[in-house]
């Protein structure tokens, strides 16, 4: 079946603008994860959803970051008032349930100018 998809694949935005990144998980996967991959920090965990709920949002780097998941499927990661340090590849992964193998999407490359 189809894998995890993410859109857009690339996003260039001006500092101070808001951006929305979208993730479509594998159908039937209840767990969804957002990670960020940057040169300086490597792969960092941001947030995890079980169904539509995010039990712990402490991985989000600042209050400019928020995420939601609706219908137990699609998730959006929103970054408000983007800063240059937000430039990174944002990866989404899904798994059948918490604790199972995670399958990653191709990522969204965000560049803040």
């Amino acid at each position, binding site marked *: 079946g189809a894998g995890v998809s993410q859109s857009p694949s690339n996003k260039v935005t001006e500092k101070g603008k808001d951006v929305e990144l979208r993730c479509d998980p594998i159908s039937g996967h209840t767990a969804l*994860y957002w*990670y960020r991959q940057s040169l300086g920090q*490597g*792969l960092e*965990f941001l947030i*995890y959803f079980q169904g539509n709920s995010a039990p712990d949002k402490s991985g989000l780097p600042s209050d400019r970051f928020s995420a939601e998941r609706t219908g137990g499927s699609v998730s959006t990661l929103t970054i408000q008032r983007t800063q240059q340090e937000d430039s990174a590849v944002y990866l989404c*992964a899904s798994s059948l349930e918490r604790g199972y*193998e995670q399958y*990653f999407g*191709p990522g969204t490359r965000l560049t803040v100018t």
Partner: protein
Amino acid sequence: AQRVTQPEKLLSVFKGAPVELKCNYSYSGSPELFWYVQYSRQHLQLLLRHISRESIKGFTADLNKGETSFHLKKPFAQEEDSAMYYCAPMNYGGSQGNLIFGKGTKLSVKP
């Protein structure tokens, strides 16, 4: 706090040579460990999971609880093995279920 260390940023070997990518972790309890691989211009993808004890693409990894290591090994490296490799224990702390990634090791297999 759980941590994972991949001490080599870059590992360069010749085709046919054995390769070992090192991974050490700190974890309280029984860890669940994974190796992920990212080939050039491709998604991050699962290579193997310690609990399955499988050999994927000739790679194996043994969990050594005494040394808290989960090194990835292959007896004869191939050029197509050139990629970025990440060791990742799963975080079961609290209500999370995320992976904790090491900084990664770039494997370069020369002809």
